[in-house]
C-alpha cells in the first residue's frame, strides 16, 4: 500500500486557503461528497438486494403448506401452494460439484502452464485466449452444450454405465444420456475454468523469484520446485480461486436452464435426463408464474443469494487475510 501514502486532505490552512477562501473548499466538498456517495451506493445496493428479496419472498412463506427446505415439488400457484427447494438445492449442488471436480485440477494446471511452463512470449497469448473463454456468454455455452456436446457425451455416459454401473450414481436405467446433470456439470466446468485459472495464475506469478530459484538451485526438478516453492505460497489463493469458481457455478442460469430438462425431483443417477437448479428454475418458471409463484421464485433466489454470498465472503476473506497477494506491484 505504499502507493497510497497519505496526501493532505485539504490544502493546509495556510496561505493558499487564506487567499482563495471558500471556493476551493466548496469544490472539494462537493466532489468528495459525490465520490463518497458513489462508494456508499455500492454498499447500499448490496443491502437493498437482501432487503427486497426478503420482503418480497415473505408472502410465499406465509402461504406455503409444505416444508420449504425438504419439499421437492414446485407448485406455488395451485391451491393450496406446495413448493420447496430440496430438488433445486440437490441439482445446484450436484452440478457444481461435478464442475468443481473437473475444473479445479484443470484450471490450476492451465494456470501453472501459463505462469511457469509455457514460453514467456507465448504465455501472454495463452492467457488472452483463456480469458476469451470467460467472454463467451452463458447462453452460447448452453446452446453449444445442447447441440454439440450432448451427442459427444453419449459414449462417455454409456461407458460409465457399463463399467462403473455398480456404483449407483453412474448407473443409467433409462438409456438416455441427454439433458442430464452430468452434461450441465461439464458445461459449468468449462465456464468456471477461466475464473479459476485466471486467479490462480495471478497468485502463481506473485511467488517470490527467490523462493523459486533457491529451490531450483538446490537441485529440485521443476515439479519439485512447484510443490516446494509455489504451492505452499499460493495455497490460500488457490483455495479462494476454487471457491470463486464455485460461486459462479452455483449461480449460472441460462446455460443450465437450456441444458437440463427441468424436473423438480432428486435423481442420484446423474447421467439421466432431469434435475433443476435454483437459477435455472427461476429463469424457466418466471413468465408463467402467478403472484405466489413469483414470490416463491424470489424466495428461492434469496436462498441462492445467501449461499453465493457466503461462498464469496469466505473466498474473499481468505484472500484479504493474506495481504501479500494484493500488493506486489
Amino acid at each position, binding site marked *: 500500500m505504499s502507493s497510497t*501514502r497519505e*496526501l493532505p486532505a485539504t490544502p493546509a490552512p495556510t496561505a493558499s486557503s487564506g487567499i482563495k477562501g471558500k471556493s476551493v473548499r466548496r469544490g472539494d466538498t462537493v466532489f468528495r461528497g459525490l465520490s463518497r456517495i458513489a*462508494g456508499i451506493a455500492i454498499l447500499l445496493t448490496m443491502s437493498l438486494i437482501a432487503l427486497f428479496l426478503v420482503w418480497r419472498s415473505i408472502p410465499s412463506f406465509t402461504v406455503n403448506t409444505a416444508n420449504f427446505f425438504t419439499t421437492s415439488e414446485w407448485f406455488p400457484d395451485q391451491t393450496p401452494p406446495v413448493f420447496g427447494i430440496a430438488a433445486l438445492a440437490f441439482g445446484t449442488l450436484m452440478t457444481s460439484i461435478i464442475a468443481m471436480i473437473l475444473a479445479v485440477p484443470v484450471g490450476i494446471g492451465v494456470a501453472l502452464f501459463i505462469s511457469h511452463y509455457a514460453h514467456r512470449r507465448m504465455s501472454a497469448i495463452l492467457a488472452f485466449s483463456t480469458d476469451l473463454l470467460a467472454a463467451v456468454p452463458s447462453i452460447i455455452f448452453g446452446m453449444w452444450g445442447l447441440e454439440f456436446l450432448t451427442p459427444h457425451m453419449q459414449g462417455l455416459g454409456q461407458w460409465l454405465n457399463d463399467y462403473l454401473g455398480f456404483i449407483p450414481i453412474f448407473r443409467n436405467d433409462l438409456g438416455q444420456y441427454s439433458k442430464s446433470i452430468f452434461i450441465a456439470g461439464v458445461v459449468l466446468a468449462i465456464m468456471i475454468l477461466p475464473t479459476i485459472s485466471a486467479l490462480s495464475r495471478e497468485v502463481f506469478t506473485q511467488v517470490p523469484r527467490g523462493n523459486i530459484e533457491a529451490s531450483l538451485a538446490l537441485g529440485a526438478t521443476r515439479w519439485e520446485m512447484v510443490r516446494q516453492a509455489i504451492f505452499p505460497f499460493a495455497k490460500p489463493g488457490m483455495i479462494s480461486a476454487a471457491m470463486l469458481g464455485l460461486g459462479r457455478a452455483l449461480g449460472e442460469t441460462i446455460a443450465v436452464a437450456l441444458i437440463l430438462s427441468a424436473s423438480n425431483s432428486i435423481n442420484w443417477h446423474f447421467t439421466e435426463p432431469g434435475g433443476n437448479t435454483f437459477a435455472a428454475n427461476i429463469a424457466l418458471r418466471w413468465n408463467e408464474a402467478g403472484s405466489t409463484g413469483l414470490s416463491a421464485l424470489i424466495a428461492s433466489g434469496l436462498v441462492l443469494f445467501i449461499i*453465493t454470498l457466503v461462498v464469496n465472503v469466505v473466498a474473499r476473506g481468505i*484472500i484479504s487475510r493474506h495481504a501479500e497477494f494484493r500488493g506486489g506491484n
Partner: protein
Amino acid sequence: MATVGSGKFERSTSLLQDALAGRRLPRWGVGAVGLTSLLAAYLLNVLTVVDGVAGTFLVAVLLFVIGQTGWSFTVEGRRHAVDRLATTTVYAAFLIAVTPLVAVLGTVLVKGFPVFSAQFFTTSMRNVSPRSEGGGLYHALIGTLEQVGLAALIGVPIGVLAAVYLVEYAPEAKSRRLSSAISFFVDVMTGVPSVVIGLFIYTAFILTLGLPRSGFAASLALAILMLPVIVRTTEEMLRLVPRDLRESSLALGIPRWKTILKVVLPTALGGIITGAMLSIARVAGETAPLLLTTFLSQSINSNPFKGPQAALPTFIWDQFTSGTDASRARAWGGALTLIVLIMILYAGAKVIARLTGAKKS
C-alpha cells in the same frame, strides 16, 4: 589424438556427470516416445476395438505417458520420472482447456454464418412465424445497444467515482472502515449471480416503484453487474498514477478536486476506458436478468423506457427455445452476432490499453 589416458578420462567425466546431474533421456526422447505412441495407437485403431479420433488420441496419450514415465524411471530415476509426468499433465490440462474454446467458437461460426445476410441485420421478427425462414435481429441489435449503452451511462460514472473515493479520499483517516467495507463488497458483488440482480431490479423497481418491465429496467440490472468490474479496474489504474503528478499539481495551489479531474483521471483515462469496455463486453451477453426485467418482443422498439424491447440474448433465447429448424438457425446467427460484438469490444479494449500504455489488461 587417442592417447592411453583419454579413455579413462572420458569414463571418469561421464561418471562425474552422472554423479552431478544424473543420466538424462536423450533430447529426442520425448519426440520419439510421442511418435511411437501415436503410431501404436493408430495400429490399435486399425487392428483392434479402439475406435474414433478421440478414442485413438486418448490411447496415444496414455501410451505416451506410460512409455515416457517408464523409460524415464529406468534411466533417470523416480524424481525425474515424476517431473516428466507432471509436465505432461500440465500440458494436457492446457490442451483440455483450449479444446472447448475452439469447439465453442467453431460451432458458433459454422452454425451462425450461413444465416448471415443483409436482411438478417435489417429486419425484425415482426410477422415472421418461428417455422418460416427469413426475419432478422435488427430489433434485438437496437435493444442491446440501447440497453448496454444506458447501463454504461449509469454504471461507469458511479463506478469511477467510487474508485476515486477508494484511492484518492479513503486513505485519509476517519473513513478507513467505510472504504475497506466498500472495497470488500465490491469484490463480493462480483460473485452475485446475475439472476439475483435481475430479481432485485424486479422486486425493487418493478414491484415496488411501479416501473414497467422495459429496456430501462434491464439497463439498471446490467449497470449493477458492470459496477464491480469498473471499480476494480479504475482503482488499479488510479493507483498506477505517480504520486509526483498529484503533488506537483497540489503544490501549484490547484484544489484537490481539480487535480483529480484534470491530472489524475486523464492520466489513467486509457485504463479506465479499457475497464469500461471489458465490463460492457461482460454484460452484453447476460440473458437471465433480461428475462426477468423485460418482455420479449418481435418488433422494433427504439424507446427503452416504454414497452417490450428485444435484445440479442433474449432474441437468441426466444429463437432457440422455439425449437424449429429455422428458429434455431436464427438463434445461432444471433449468437455469432453477439460473439462478434463482444470480440470487437474486447479487441477495442486491448488496442486502447496498448495505445495508452496501460499495463494491465
